[in-house]
C-alpha cells in the first residue's frame, strides 16, 4: 500500500539523488524547499495543532539566522555550536510569546504577535552595532574541511538530515498524548482544563517547539544564502509560511510537507515575474480558505494509508484483538449500555 509514510520516504529519497543530477540552481531550490518544510511544520504545530493563531514565525526564522550568523561572525563560534545556539535562541524568544497567548486568542493573538514580529524587524534594522543594520552581513558558508564536500553540497545534506529528523520528530510527537493535548487545547480550552491539561504548559510547549523549528530553519538558511539581512524575515515571509500550511493542510504533518513543496514550486515559477508573487500568493490563500479550508491533504486522507491519527498505536488492530478477548467466556460484559442512546443524529 502506498500511504503517507511511503510518500515521505520517496520524497526524501528523491531529494537525496538531486545533487547527482541537478544544476546548482535546482539544488539551491530543493535546499530552500527543505527549509520551508521545517518552517511549515513548526508553524503547523503551533497554528494547526495547538490552535494558536500567531504570526511571529518569520521573526523566529530571522532570529535563528541572525543568531547562528552573529555567533560565528562576532564571537567566532564554529558553525556546529552557532547553529544550535540560533535555534535555541529562537525557541526561547518563541516561548516568551506564550504569555500574551494565555490572555489573547484568535485575531488578537495574531495582531499582538504581528506587532512583536514588526518590533523584531525594527531591532534587526536599527541595532547597528550588533546586527549590522539594514544592509545585513555576509555569513560564512558551511566549511566541512577536511571532508571532501563543498559548501553547497555540505549544507544541502545537512539540511536533508535535519529535515528528515524534524519531520520524524513532528510525526511522532503529534501521535502522542502531547499531540492530543495540543488538539484538546485547540478544540476546547475549558474541556481540556477539566481533563487536567495545563494550558500554560501546552501552549508554551507549542510555542517553544514552533520557535525551535523556525530557528533551526534560520540557522540553516544563513550558510545556505551566505548572507543575512532583515528583508528575508518580513511580513511576506510570514504570508509564505501561512499559505503553505493552508494550502497543504492545517493540523497535518503531511500537509505541511505538501504545502511547502507546492508553494516553493509556485514561488520559483513566479520568480521571473517578481511583482506578481504577492498577488498570486494572496489569491491562492483566499481560494483555499474559501474552497478547501483544510488543504490539499484532505484529498488524500480519504485513501487508506493516508489518515493521520493522533495516536501512535494501531488502534484498529488492537480493537480487533480486544473484541476477541471480550468474547472469551468469563470476561465481563455490559450489555445494558449497548443501545443506550438513539442512533438518530440531532
Amino acid at each position, binding site marked *: 500500500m502506498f500511504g503517507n509514510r511511503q510518500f515521505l520516504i520517496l520524497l526524501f529519497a528523491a531529494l537525496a539523488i538531486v545533487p547527482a543530477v541537478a544544476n546548482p540552481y535546482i539544488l539551491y531550490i530543493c535546499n530552500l524547499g527543505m527549509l520551508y518544510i521545517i518552517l511549515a511544520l513548526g508553524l503547523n504545530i503551533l497554528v494547526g495543532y495547538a490552535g494558536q493563531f500567531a504570526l511571529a514565525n518569520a521573526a523566529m526564522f530571522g532570529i535563528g539566522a541572525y543568531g547562528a550568523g552573529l555567533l560565528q561572525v562576532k564571537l567566532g563560534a564554529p558553525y556546529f555550536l552557532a547553529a544550535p545556539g540560533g535555534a535555541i535562541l529562537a525557541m526561547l524568544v518563541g516561548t516568551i510569546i506564550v504569555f500574551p497567548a494565555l490572555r489573547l486568542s484568535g485575531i488578537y493573538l495574531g495582531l499582538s504577535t504581528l506587532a512583536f514580529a514588526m518590533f523584531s524587524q525594527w531591532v534587526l534594522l536599527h541595532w547597528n552595532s550588533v546586527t549590522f543594520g539594514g544592509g545585513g552581513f555576509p555569513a560564512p558558508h558551511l566549511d566541512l574541511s577536511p571532508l571532501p564536500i563543498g559548501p553547497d553540497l555540505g549544507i544541502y545534506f545537512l539540511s536533508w538530515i535535519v529535515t528528515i529528523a524534524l519531520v520524524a520528530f513532528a510525526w511522532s510527537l503529534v501521535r502522542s*498524548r502531547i499531540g492530543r493535548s495540543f488538539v484538546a487545547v485547540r478544540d476546547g480550552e475549558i474541556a481540556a482544563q477539566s481533563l487536567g491539561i495545563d494550558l500554560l504548559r501546552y501552549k508554551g510547549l507549542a510555542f517553544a517547539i514552533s520557535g525551535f523549528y523556525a530557528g533551526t530553519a534560520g540557522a540553516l538558511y544563513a550558510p545556505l544564502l551566505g548572507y543575512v539581512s532583515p528583508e528575508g524575515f518580513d511580513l511576506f515571509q510570514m504570508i509564505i509560511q501561512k499559505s503553505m500550511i493552508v494550502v497543504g493542510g492545517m493540523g497535518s504533518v503531511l500537509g505541511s510537507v505538501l504545502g511547502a513543496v507546492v508553494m516553493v514550486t509556485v514561488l520559483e515559477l513566479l520568480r521571473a515575474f517578481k511583482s506578481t508573487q504577492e498577488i498570486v500568493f494572496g489569491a491562492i490563500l483566499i481560494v483555499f480558505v474559501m474552497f478547501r479550508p483544510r488543504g490539499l491533504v484532505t484529498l488524500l486522507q480519504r485513501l487508506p494509508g493516508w489518515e493521520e491519527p493522533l495516536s501512535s498505536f494501531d488502534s484498529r488492530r488492537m480493537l480487533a484483538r480486544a473484541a476477541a478477548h471480550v468474547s472469551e467466556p468469563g470476561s465481563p460484559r455490559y450489555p445494558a*449500555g449497548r443501545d443506550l442512546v438513539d442512533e438518530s*443524529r440531532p
Partner: protein
Amino acid sequence: MTMLSVRGLSISFGGVRALSDVSFEVGAGNIVGIIGPNGAGKTTLLNTISGLNRPSAGEIALDGVSIAGRRPTEIAKLGLARTFQMSQLFPGMTVLENVMTGLHLRTRAGVFAAAFRSRSMREEEEATAQKAWEALRYVGMERFAHQPGTALSFGQQRMIEIARTLISEPNLVLLDEPAVGLSVNRVAELGRLLRRIRDEKGVTLIMIEHVVRLVMGVCDRVLVLNYGVKIAEGKPEQVVADPRVIEAYLGSEFDAARRAS
C-alpha cells in the same frame, strides 16, 4: 465519609449574586441531584466546584482537601471529572482519541519520549488505547471508536463524555444535565448506567438534571437552588413535595391553588 463539602459558598459576577451562602455535603458513593429553575445558579455551582469560577467567599473541600479558588487542572488531579451541558468533545479527534485524552493525568510520556517513541511511551499508548476502548464499551459506544465524535447525536456524545470522565478513575464526577438529548425511553437506561458507575466503580456523582423521573429514580439526595440560594435539601420524594420547591418552579399562585383544590 464525606466526598465533597461546600460551606458558605458565594459568588458574584459584577453586581449579580449568582450563589449566596450555599452549604451542603455529599457522602462518598452518593448520587446527588441539583435541581432548580433556569438561572438558579446550578451550572455556576458546578463550575465553581470544578475551578472554572473563583468563589467570592466560602470553602469547598474535596475528600478533605480544600479546593476553593484552585485551578481546574489542580482540581482534576485530585480526582474530580465532569461533563458539560453542551457537548465538549474535541471535534478534531476520533471518539477513541477523545476518550484517550481523559487519561492525560495518569500518563507520563513527555516530549522526548513521544518524539523518540521510547519503549515505555509505546506501551503507555497501547494501555491508554485499551483502557479507552474498555471505557467506551462500558457505556456501549465502542462501535463508534473510529468516528469523529461530533458526527454523533447529542445523546451519544454525552455517553462518550461520560466514558472520558470514567477513564481517569475519578472520585467525584459532576454531570451537567446528562439526559439532555436523550429520548424519553433512553433516560431510564441512563439512570441504570449512572447507578452502575456508582456501584461498580465507587464513583460519587453530582448531577444537574431537569428530567424529574431520572432524579427521582437514581438520586439519593436532592438539592434545590433558586436565585442562587439553597431552598431545600433531602430525599427526592420529600423535596418534590416541598411547598417552597413547588413555588420556585410554578409560582405561589399555583401552590395556593393546589392546596385549595
